[in-house]
């Protein structure tokens, strides 16, 4: 028992590496925030574009979506970081991680938004169009708000699952929380920094899961 406590909850080690873990915490939080905002926005943009039913555009969207849903995020990050320089594009690990996870989140959420859009009753389109509202106006004011409300549970689930992948940024030397915890762990020859990181992840993602629950009840039908 003492061995376990010393290995995972060593106060001295924890205190020593706490400042660095906190720095990593902010990097993780910032990266997660950026991924959520840009991924959800990009995904919605793709779904809106798809609604216009241009065959060429739609083929491109579907290719993009299937590609980024099929590839493991880790592979995307590594290919981006080590592969892009060969074509003359050199981006920081942070930027690569952000872009990669944005594309993955956008790909998954595009499919969710799209399912929502197609499940809105045809009568809603007809009612809005019969008042003189155009295609875009109907999509924007009538269909999308319903589609988003219907898809909030899968949307939040997917968002949390993919945002947790910020930890993968450690492979491209982004000083996020897991990277810091791993180096600290090596220096201290003790696992306690990882405990701190775990606490940090809970601190970020626990409120996010609670937030999603709140949104789900808030936007449930009737209100």
């Amino acid at each position: 028992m003492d061995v376990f406590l010393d290995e995972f909850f060593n106060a001295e080690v924890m205190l020593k590496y706490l400042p660095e873990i906190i720095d990593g915490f902010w990097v993780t939080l910032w990266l997660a925030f950026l991924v959520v905002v840009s991924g959800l926005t990009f995904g919605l943009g793709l779904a809106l574009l798809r609604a216009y039913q241009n065959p060429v555009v739609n083929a491109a969207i579907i290719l993009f979506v299937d590609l980024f849903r099929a590839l493991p995020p880790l592979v995307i990050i590594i290919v981006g970081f080590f592969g892009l320089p060969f074509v003359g594009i050199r981006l920081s690990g942070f930027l690569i991680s952000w872009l990669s996870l944005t594309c993955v989140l956008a790909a998954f959420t595009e499919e969710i938004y799209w399912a929502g859009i197609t499940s809105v009753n045809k009568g809603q389109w007809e009612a809005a169009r019969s008042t003189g509202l155009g295609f875009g106006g109907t999509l924007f004011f009538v269909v999308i708000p319903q589609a988003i409300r219907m898809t909030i549970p899968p949307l939040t689930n997917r968002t949390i699952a993919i945002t947790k992948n910020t930890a993968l940024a450690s492979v491209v030397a982004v000083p996020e929380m897991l990277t810091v915890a791993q180096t600290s762990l090596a220096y201290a020859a003790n696992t306690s920094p990882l405990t701190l990181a775990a606490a940090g992840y809970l601190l970020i993602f626990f409120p996010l899961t609670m937030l999603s629950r709140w949104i789900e009840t808030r936007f449930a039908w009737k209100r």
Partner: protein
Amino acid sequence: MARVEPVVEALAIHKSFGDLEVLKGVNLTVAPQELVFIIGPSGSGKSTLLRCCNLLEEPSSGVVKITGEDITAAGVDINQVRQRIGMVFQSFNLYPHMSALGNVSLALRKVKKQPRAQAEAKAQEALERVGLAHKADAYPTELSGGQQQRVAIARAIAMEPDVMLFDEPTSALDPELVGSVLEVMRELRKSGMTMVVVSHEMRFARDAADRVLFMDAGMVVEEGPPDEVFGAPKHERTKAFLASVNGH
């Protein structure tokens, strides 16, 4: 007699869905302030005819004129035209994420580009006309079917259309709620609204219609004043249909 420009003039409308010919050369002319009532068995093409009048369905051939303007011509701004044609659906089709007021004011704001305050005042007025001023803040799920359909009527009349199309407005309602919707339609008629109504409410047709059209298999089989069509139908198919309806 001076020729009055009809509000709706649908001429030789043909409509096919693939191989299925649903309308086989139908004519429909509606004079200002007239109420034309359309009856006929299920699948005879009544809804399709109404939907051709505001181009929710594109006729395969034929011409549709609204107050003299050919809306089937190339280059017509259909969104402009549809503002002048109100439509009420069997299934209400209210926007579930908006209050009654939101439902009625949406097109005023986004199509007529009225400022929110003006649009909402106008919407409130329309809700008043259907007797639902006190339900302005209610969401569709909080309203009975009859109330929902009246909000849908308010949504259409708020746009001040030249004509209103009703596609079986009471068919989805419990019997005890039908009366309130018909009452609103009577009021509309009294106020001089031009109306085309597809419905099975024969009593309403007898009271309120100027003219009744009987459709069968994509054609207008018989048309005339309600007394004639209901009292002394000329065609066998009309007789059979009326017998089957009255039998129930």
